[in-house]
């Protein structure tokens, strides 16, 4: 299951995050992949707003974990500063999905430590004259029943995949 989208502006990235938020359930994990400046934190802002969180969302690069309470609690994690697998284990991912959703920046680097079922969101920094792109891929079957609805709600940004 794969959806490819075009996100020309920061607002688009945010709106896609908000559209995804409507379909999130407690226990979901989302791995965010993309270089510095690709829009990972912007995407999380969209998710948090979509879940009804009214506060500020900034990258937890230095705090490692931030928590936003909306319809579901968002556990926003950034592993960029971590070097050892143990440091990631010490964050306790499995507990964060107990009561909410887990969003991990640089998630692909620690994919083996994420819940085996998760959604991967890949953001790409466009080269000169290119469009900003966003690719969603479901890992495991937990998204199967929601996939059609997700595709429908993301239609406005759909590019010829």
């Amino acid at each position, binding site marked *: 299951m794969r959806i490819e989208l075009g996100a020309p502006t920061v607002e688009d990235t945010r709106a896609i995050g908000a559209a995804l938020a409507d379909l999130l359930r407690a226990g979901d994990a989302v791995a965010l992949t993309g270089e510095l400046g690709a829009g990972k934190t912007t995407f999380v802002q969209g998710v948090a707003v979509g879940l009804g969180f009214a506060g500020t969302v900034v990258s937890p690069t230095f705090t490692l974990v931030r928590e936003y309470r909306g319809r579901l609690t968002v556990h926003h994690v950034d*592993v960029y500063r971590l070097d050892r*697998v*143990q440091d990631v*284990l010490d964050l*306790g991912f*499995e507990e964060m999905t*107990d*009561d909410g959703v887990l969003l991990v920046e640089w998630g692909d680097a620690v994919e083996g430590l994420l819940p085996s079922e998760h959604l991967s969101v890949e953001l790409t920094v466009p080269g000169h004259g290119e469009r900003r792109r966003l690719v969603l891929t479901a890992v495991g079957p937990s998204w199967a029943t929601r996939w059609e609805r997700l595709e429908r709600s993301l239609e406005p940004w759909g590019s010829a995949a």
Partner: protein
Amino acid sequence: MIVLGIETSTPQTSVALGTETEILGSTSLTGTARQDAVVPAIEHLLRWTGLELSAVGGVAVGLGPGLFTGLRVGVEAGKSLAQVLGVPIVGIPSLDALAFGVRHTSRMVGAVIDARRGEVFYAFYRTVHGGVVREGDYQVAPPDHLAADLEARGEDVLLAGNGAILYRRELEGTGGRLEFASAVSAHPQAGSLVELAIPRMHREEFDRLFDVVPLYLRKSDAEIAWDQRRRGASA
């Protein structure tokens, strides 16, 4: 001497104030994300017991093994208080506290805490006069590993803890005669930390503040494969 105990290694957050002779007050609350309750619970206990924070002469914290989020909050709260008050701190493995709480038995004690991901943290204890003595290492393993351990021991064992309750069906019928402690002993109690800490405080076996760290059993020495961070940094 008044000692404050803080235990947050399981979904139960437990706080207690006690002396050599009695537990002056204790409070426990079970549920996920209850670690927010640690500081308000301490304030509550102080108010209800009519004590000033400055009356606290030592801090005892449960080190796990257990849930990461709870441990981080509980251990940090204990360390901050010890530092601010300038009082000694003692870290105690939470499995020890769990076993200590059910020590009035002639059987061997198995302390078993749910570790998530289909695993349990556990250790075995021999009861001795006034306490328990651990036999073997702290373990993290699936319940069938524990069942094999029970089989190998072949002794009558009292199993206590939320992990024993959760996997009762898998464990029953293995080894010698098993007894399961009831829900009241499902979690390590802060009162047990206080009782275990006081003799150590009298012997001045304090821990250094920076040595008090949660007990993580799932160890990994591996490094994160960071190709893309390097690529990003060099871009």
